[in-house]
């Protein structure tokens, strides 16, 4: 089971309280995890990745196991601890306080 941690606003949008657990068939990659996440919560489509280009939204980051994976290939294998469910794959709102 893959554990996914979402930022506050996306948890609200998905109507979930804590981490999300997803069944993802190997190989466990960022693309496959996000595909499974969006399949389970269609309202998250286009909020994390651009629907057309599949690129990460500029103000979001992807972390796991104390590493920033935001610039890794979406098809690269995720760390073993994520694939085994010991650590969450984290979608994080970038630090940007905004103007309002």
């Amino acid at each position, binding site marked *: 089971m893959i554990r996914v941690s979402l930022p506050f*606003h996306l948890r*609200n*949008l998905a109507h979930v309280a804590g981490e999300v657990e997803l069944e993802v068939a190997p190989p466990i990659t960022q693309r496959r995890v996000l595909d499974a996440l969006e399949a389970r919560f269609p309202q998250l489509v286009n*909020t*994390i990745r651009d629907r057309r280009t599949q690129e990460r*939204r500029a103000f*979001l980051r992807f972390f796991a196991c104390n590493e920033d994976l935001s610039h890794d290939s979406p098809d690269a294998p995720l760390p073993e601890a994520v694939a085994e469910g010991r650590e969450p794959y984290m979608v994080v709102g970038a630090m*940007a306080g*905004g103007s*309002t």
Partner: protein
Amino acid sequence: MSSVRVLVGTKKGAFILSSDGKRKKWDVSGPHFAGWEVYHLAGSPKDPNRLMASQTSGWFGQVIQRSDDAGRTWEAVDNKFEYVGEPGMHQWYDGTQRPWEFTRVWHLEPTPDDPDTWWAGIQDAALFKTTDGGKSWTEFTGLRTHPSGPKWQPGAGGMCLHTILLDPKHKDRMYVAISAAGAFRSDDGAQTWKPINRGLKSQGELPDPNVEVGFCVHKIAQHPSQPDVLYMQKHWDVMRSDDAGENWHEVSGNLPVDFGFTIDVHAHEPKTVFVVPIKSDSEHFPLDGKLSVYRSKSGGDEWQAMTKGLPQADCYVNVLRDAMAVDTLDDCGVYFGTTGGQVYASSDGGETWEAIVRDLPGVLSVEVQTLK
């Protein structure tokens, strides 16, 4: 007994204000979608419990929310607003050409007879429609692909389609307004469009007096009994057309300043018009710190300041283009929201005002549902 529901979109969520027909006591629910910008929310005239909201964020993009129970619960529906075919190019601030790119939904317009059918105006300017309650959106390309498109340019807020008016007498006629392209009319159900900007003048920005597009139209309003009469708050100038937009003439008259964003028409008096003058395009706040609604009972030209109950000192808020609406009770209610988070209401056609809620986030839009 009649009641009123005021739908308020703000910089940090949506709020729903409810009152009985006396409009003295107000219940406030919200924030809905807390922390998100809600550019607009509106209700279906056919089924007032059906609401749609445009929820948007620089972090997470666009979400469209639908409620079937007057805002008690919400469901995210489709957020796919994809231009059909090649997006094409429009003019950028520096005069270069830039491709159309979706940013957000500015305005959601319900149709009178079908709670599942809505129009959406987006940035970069284009017109979309749903006929299944928001489960899917389809672009009507005739507007974006108009030959004048490469000359459209963004206003300071982006190249937004912010006004959608459905003509109540001519089934296939509708109007839209775009900053900064101008006003457009369709007579065939949004298939084809005609710029209707003759008579508008913006000498500072557009030296050619006969230019077809490029005008920063801030808002258009009409009265359902006289849909061929249109009122416009342009960047500068308050304008009127008596022939469905074919020709415009200025009706700023004795306004102390004719810059502003919003404009609306009394529910029962088609010649009674409301505007909120703003000092200038450089200083987006009321003249001398005095918040004033100006009312004309003659279709423009002759205006009267309606200030009773509004702050008359040290007020430096703005009133944005979609932030005024009227109810249809016998004593027409007029409502507007400010960037300071107040929503002011008048239950006597603008004679007197009071804040029905204060200290909300900056108000982006106000709509009213009159429930009978």
